[in-house]
């Protein structure tokens, strides 16, 4: 390891470690790209591929992202973009969960789908895409539906769960599993021109409140479908929230929901602030 670190240090120019050096170290010492990137970041060497992150994300923060494990539940419209952005951001471990294969009706919006991936498991496409764009990122592909029965196991060691599901009932199960496991959940949902995002920390019940009137079935997405741009917008907002949770920066969408209307170009913030219990009522 000492030799590998020395080699990486020798190759570092102007504080940046070129990708070619990471590849050379991996090959020469028989290490995975993940191990090499970990060695680099732990020794203060900043991979050049993240240089445009550098003025907003410090080397220590880049290391924190690398050491993070994020579960993305659903690898379709939202999930594809979420995985793409997490991998480019430099999140070290992504658990991608989805039971489905790509079908033709996914092609208008799901970034992991191409004519060549039709019939392929969405999680396998996620694994291959991440290996292509950032080989230092580890993907655990789980071809299964997230539910209460497997939720605890799938969320083990995870820092944040990203909701990229297309079903309200599964979403509510995810919210329960996150609460039980004490994991923050970033919630996103889309339908046609419309979408919303909210973040809940353990103990919050924002997602349950958002769907408190729900009885059964789907929302407006059933009639409207989803276009190319709505998942990209909402997924990007979700990833910004994940980044902030991991780094402890900024203001989260906690106790509030951002509701987005891309047709009228309106954004509404809906407050889910818990009302203080009035002593008179409690008595």
């Amino acid at each position, binding site marked *: 390891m000492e030799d590998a670190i020395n080699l990486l240090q020798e190759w570092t120019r102007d504080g940046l470690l070129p990708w070619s050096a990471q590849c050379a170290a991996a090959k020469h010492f028989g290490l995975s790209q993940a191990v090499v990137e970990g060695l680099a970041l732990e020794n203060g060497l900043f991979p050049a591929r993240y240089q445009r992150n550098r003025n907003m994300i410090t080397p220590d923060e880049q290391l924190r992202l690398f050491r993070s494990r994020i579960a993305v539940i659903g690898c379709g419209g939202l999930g594809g973009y979420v995985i793409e952005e997490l991998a480019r951001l430099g999140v070290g471990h992504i658990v991608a969960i989805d039971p489905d294969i790509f079908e033709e009706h996914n092609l208008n919006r799901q970034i992991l789908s191409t004519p060549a991936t039709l019939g392929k498991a969405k999680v396998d496409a996620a694994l291959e895409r991440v290996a292509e764009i950032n080989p230092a990122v580890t993907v655990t592909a789980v071809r299964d539906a997230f539910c209460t029965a497997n939720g605890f196991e799938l969320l083990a060691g995870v820092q944040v769960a990203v909701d990229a599901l297309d079903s*309200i009932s599964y979403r509510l199960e995810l919210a329960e599993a996150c609460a039980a496991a004490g994991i923050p959940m970033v919630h996103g949902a889309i339908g046609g021109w419309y*979408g919303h995002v909210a973040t809940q920390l353990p103990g919050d019940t924002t997602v349950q*409140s958002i*769907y408190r*009137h*729900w009885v059964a079935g789907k*929302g407006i997405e059933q009639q409207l479908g989803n276009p190319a741009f709505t998942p990209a917008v909402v997924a990007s907002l979700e990833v910004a929230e994940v980044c902030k949770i991991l780094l402890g920066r900024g203001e989260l969408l906690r106790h509030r929901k951002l509701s987005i209307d891309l047709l009228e170009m309106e954004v509404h913030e809906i407050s889910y602030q818990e009302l203080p219990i009035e002593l008179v009522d409690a008595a």
Partner: protein
Amino acid sequence: MHVTVKLFATFRNGRFKIAEKELPEGTDCRSVVLSLGLTEEEIGIIMINGRHGELEQELSNNDTLSLFPLVGGG
């Protein structure tokens, strides 16, 4: 009594963005929803004066009722 009704997203189609309504005292959210030709199943969020409301909640004079459809895709 006077109530301001605000509609969002698809609820605006063939209806309005905002309307001022004169309603009988004691009118609840459900009757406003049904009078607009909406069903309970379509409702995502009910807000009364910026706070979460319930279908059976009675409205008061000068309340603002906001209705958002259910959004659940991914």
